[in-house]
């Protein structure tokens, strides 16, 4: 009995951590290139609605995931044109993207409220996942594994590949990178596009795996938490995965306490736990740190002066 409970808690934890991890990995890459895109929440919502609408229409949740990445990637390009090519303030542009994503997803999703769709199937045969302990290894949605593989891939890309080195150079010193011939804007466009696609995939996880349904503001601020996680992780992929799973634990705690009818605290207090936890974590990691770990050019516009 306790084993099954423990396993179900761990399953919930992985499920809660995955979308935040995927979106945060995208934001991490964008920020490493020097771009602060605060539109993650909006892009996740766009991904969630595009994924759900596509899955309902085509019957294929996998196509839904793809559509989510394309739609949120397209939204990220609106941000990129404004913030990179037109050198608009990145904070304001990111906020605009989040407000836009909230509005357009509600608009586009209105006909889909109340509908249901198939969720993504399991990767491994369900016979493997029948045993409670093996379920812990084999019983997850494909996106849970993809998120972990992505973490390794992003780590390898940033620290071991030449392209990753260029991306970091662009984020640390855009002027120097430009002067030795690296295409600063192109690198940043690609990084923002990757961030958008990942936010879209993270959003699709909500509407295709976790719930699966569409409701307005389905992601409930998780996009902002993903941005906070990047700060928590000091821009390191390994710590990002750790942080996302810690965060999954907080959400699991909230859900378990609610399910158990735990009445020492009001349910509203439990609902605000993820946000309070984020603030506390940000505060704790900020103690005694000069804040110099961020990419040096983060949030600064760049315009080549030929």
């Amino acid at each position, binding site marked *: 009995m306790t084993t099954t409970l423990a396993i179900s808690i761990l399953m919930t934890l992985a499920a809660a951590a995955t979308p935040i991890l995927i979106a945060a990995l995208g934001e991490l890459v964008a920020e490493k290139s020097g771009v602060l895109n*605060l539109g993650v929440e909006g892009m996740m919502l766009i991904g969630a609605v595009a994924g759900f609408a596509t899955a309902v229409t085509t019957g294929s949740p996998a196509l839904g995931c793809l559509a989510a990445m394309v739609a949120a990637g397209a939204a990220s390009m*609106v941000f990129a*044109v*404004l913030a990179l090519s*037109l*050198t*608009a*303030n990145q*904070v*304001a*542009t990111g*906020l*605009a*993207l989040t*407000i*836009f994503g*909230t*509005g*357009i*997803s*509600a*608009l*586009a999703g*209105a006909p889909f409220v109340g509908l249901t769709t198939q969720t993504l199937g399991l990767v491994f045969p369900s016979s493997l996942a029948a045993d409670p302990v093996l379920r812990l290894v084999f019983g997850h949605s494909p996106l849970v594994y993809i998120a972990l593989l992505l973490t390794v891939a992003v780590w390898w890309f940033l620290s071991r590949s*030449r392209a990753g080195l260029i991306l970091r150079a662009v984020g640390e010193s855009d002027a120097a990178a430009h002067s*030795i*011939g*690296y*295409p600063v804007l192109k690198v940043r466009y690609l990084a923002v596009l990757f961030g958008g696609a990942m936010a879209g995939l993270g959003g699709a996880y909500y509407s295709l795996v976790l719930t699966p349904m569409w409701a*307005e503001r389905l992601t*409930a*601020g998780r996009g*902002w*938490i993903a*941005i*906070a996680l990047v*700060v928590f992780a000091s821009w390191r992929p390994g710590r990002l995965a750790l942080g996302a799973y810690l965060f999954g634990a907080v959400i699991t705690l909230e859900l378990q306490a609610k399910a158990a009818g735990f009445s020492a605290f*009001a349910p*509203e*207090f439990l*609902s*605000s736990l993820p*946000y*309070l936890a*984020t*603030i506390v974590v*940000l*505060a704790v990691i*900020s*103690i005694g*740190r*000069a*804040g110099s770990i961020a990419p040096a050019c983060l949030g600064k516009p760049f315009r*080549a002066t*030929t």
Partner: protein
Amino acid sequence: MGPRLVPRLAPSRSMVFAAPVIAVVATVLVGALGFTLLGYDGIGAIREIFLTPLMSAYRWQDLLVKAAPLAIIAIGLSIGFRANVWNIGAEGQYVLGGLGGTAVALLTAEMTGAWILPAMILAGIIGGMAYAAVPALLRTRLGVNEILSSLMLNYVAIQLLYFLMRGPWKDPMGFNFPQTILFGAAQTLPIAIPGTLVHIGVPIAAALALTVWFLLARSVMGFQVRVVGLAPNAARYGGFREKRTIWLALMAGGCFAGLAGAIEVAGPFGQMVPGFPTGYGYTAIIVAFLGRLHPIGILLAALVLALTYVGGESAQTTIGLPAAAAGVFQSLMLFFLLAADILVRYRLVLGIDAASQAEPVATARTVAP
């Protein structure tokens, strides 16, 4: 050679004023096109949202009532944005302001007296400022990014509101609806223009805009805010304390958002309900930018954004436009404003001219790995 952007020697003053107008016009055009493509009556939507409310005297009242909280919150935010302090938590500060006002209203439910309303407004301001003090404290003491902390608190504020509505503050005679009792006459904002909906929050918003305009333009404090925002290093050298400015910026935001919350709960709402957070805190960010962070510009911008609410509501009933359309129009306006802003610093050159040929071409040099 196609159209290019050429840097200006000095920022264009006329473009500073033209950009918001360009943004609104572009929003109308693209909005009409976009909503037509989405299968709605695009032209009708624009007429319903941007013109119909202006044609009717009744809607004008509504417009002023909706614009007042937007303007008040945006004025507070603009002080912070000028100093590069990004308070995204106005929504939560507005809710806490409403809760502060509600607390006083509930305590004084059976009482009458001219002191009650000022006490409600004061409690609202204290609520908003106390809530803004959290990100201010975290930023100045620990260096926590105020964007993230103030935003997280918005979600917490809404949960606090739900908690109070479902529990301690629920109207015992309210058939179990999660809302407070209706406020009495002493707890309700007086009407400014008899026979209309226009309450005294509207003249208060206008008076605040004028006061802040004067303070920013004429006081040392206003100068300090502007310098810290424009040149933080120079400000530090000049002896302005950055931490004090961060506090000032966030307290101003919290104070104004809290005030708006108290005015709303004592005015149009007349009781506290779970639907109190209406996104004003986020829309006010757009109002602040569209108004060029200038108090008078903000008054005009608040009226424009109020149109999207008032017109959006009427477009829901007349042409079946979903409520979310208002948010889409609002964000389009901000997108276009941010895009048009480049014209403040750059000139748009169309086609070939002498300068374009004289300009050196950037040469990319390959580098050995």
